[in-house]
């Protein structure tokens, strides 16, 4: 249960952090988001990751919790990355900077 919750929080956290990067904003939304929105996404992303750490530490203690947190963040960042790549492959025409095949 703690793993599932931590996984979901990490997923939300990294998704928010990805949307807070200008390059990804342009690729996904076709434009840069307002600076305030970018900062909110950064803070939300960081908070979600800290919350995931808190959940794992509360459930398993510092030693196991930190190891599990490291594993979750590594894996989930890879999943978010693959989702971004997959999205850009599925909807290349939505991207203004994409060239035709």
């Amino acid at each position: 249960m703690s793993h599932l919750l931590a996984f979901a929080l990490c997923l939300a956290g990294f998704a928010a952090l990805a949307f807070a990067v200008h390059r990804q904003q342009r690729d996904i939304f076709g434009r840069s988001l307002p600076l305030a929105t970018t900062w909110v996404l950064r803070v939300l992303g960081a908070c979600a990751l800290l919350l995931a750490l808190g959940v794992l530490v509360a459930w398993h203690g510092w030693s196991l919790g930190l190891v599990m947190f490291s594993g979750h963040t590594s894996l989930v960042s890879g999943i978010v990355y693959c989702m971004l790549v997959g999205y850009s492959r599925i909807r290349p025409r939505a991207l203004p900077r994409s060239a035709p095949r």
Partner: protein
Amino acid sequence: MNSDNDQRVAGRGIRQTMSSLHTWTGLLLGWILYAMFLTGTVSYFKDELSQWMRPELARLSEIPDQAVVAQRIADEFGKTLAGASQWSMRLPDARNNSVYAFWRTSARSPGQRGFGEAYFDPATGGKVTSRETLGGDFFYRFHFQFHYMPVVWGRWIAGAAAMFMLVAIVSGVITHKKIFVDFFTFRWGRRQRSWLDAHNALAVFGLPFHLMITYTGLVTLMALYMPWGERVAFKTPAERQQLAAELSAFIPPGKPSGQNVPLASVEEMVRQAQERWGRDQVGRVNAVHPGDAAARVAVTRGDPGRVSMSPQYLEFEGATGKLLAVRENVGGAAETRGVFYALHLGRFSDTVTRWLYFLVSFMGTAMVGTGLVMWTVKRRQQLPDPDRPYFGFRLVERLNIAGIAGLSVAMTAFLWGNRLLPHPLEGRAELEIHLFFIVWALTLLHALARPARSAWVEQLWAASVLLSLLPVLNAMTTQRPLWHSLAEGDWIFAGMDIMCWALAWLHAALAMRTARQSAVSPSRSKANRRAPVTVASSEGAG
């Protein structure tokens, strides 16, 4: 202004220097590192793999009472190993369905090793007659000491490779100047850029793990690599024994009294340990001079649930069962080493954490693999005549094929050997290992004989076919096919079959992608390089 320019020039200089260091430390022992990483990754499931490779041993639907099992096996030893000067048994747990034991005999006659080992049935106490195999322990041992060479040589080579890896990681971090800006960047269809992005992503996402696993790998063998401090600090036998007691459940051997006294109840000893640590938390029971009045027994705590390999054990007087000592703490330096050791092995993990270890370690393997391939991708574009590359390029290219695709074929062949070699057969375990190396050597010959692209595609397909048919072979040669495993809830056998298909799919996808790329003409490739198909912005990484 000038000062800024100077700083920028100096910054570029250090980055370029680090880039070269990263390239060459990554390449020179890269194939060894890849093999260490992949076999090490697999080793996170070595106990499960060992169960799969000994299908004759029945699955444990629940963990038996370790105290009862320990007494049962001790009774068996009392009958069959009367002359043993020492024995040690690893009790069954959530990941082991048998009791593994080894023993030493004091009287060594010519031709005898004075050492024995066997697997025992926890339900009956009798020896089990499973096929002779090293199981998952082969990959585990290979990943830090290799094979066909003295163990110490292998460990020195592994240490050198790990040190190269550590240098490559640190220099790679310095080289990668936009870690956060490029965190999620992947530029599809740009060949060299795409490989670089994939390599960076695999490196950065798992960076804490990669640093940890490399550094702790060196720590596990630090006494071999840097023995001088220990030699200076611990000179007398008593000091060395004290050191040994900090690092493992060590009972000073002492001398037998010569007076025969049967061991007291081992069950009671384990019971005391269970009360202290929990029902399924006992790891091993070790006995020195069992059956003698001077016997000592140590009951050690298992690895699950604690991020430390520092020994915790109860020491008993063998003849009376009296608790002599409780050792649950070691000094700060020993505990630091114990934590690093545990972080490397990950044996404290629950199932989810073990999968996290496996998957992030797999990312590390892919990081090394993409780094090796990138070396050729980058230089291919600069070749004056791509059809006649220079020797170094050809060497790296062919070693990459055998080192990456060929290793997958060889590892799968090892598992095929486990199912196909007759049983019983003299030297069967060693034959499985020979098969692994013969197939690996054949993939190198194949890579040398075929055009590079064809060799990649053919070996990736070979790995895919072998992996996808392994569950079929398992169904034909054992009583534990997938449908049976699923019905019984046997997730070790079912998981192995499903994992084989997942890896078969991965190899097939890589084979198809490589084949498709080879079909693209050079002019098309150039066009692709100018105009990326998708994503990611046209901004370069710089």
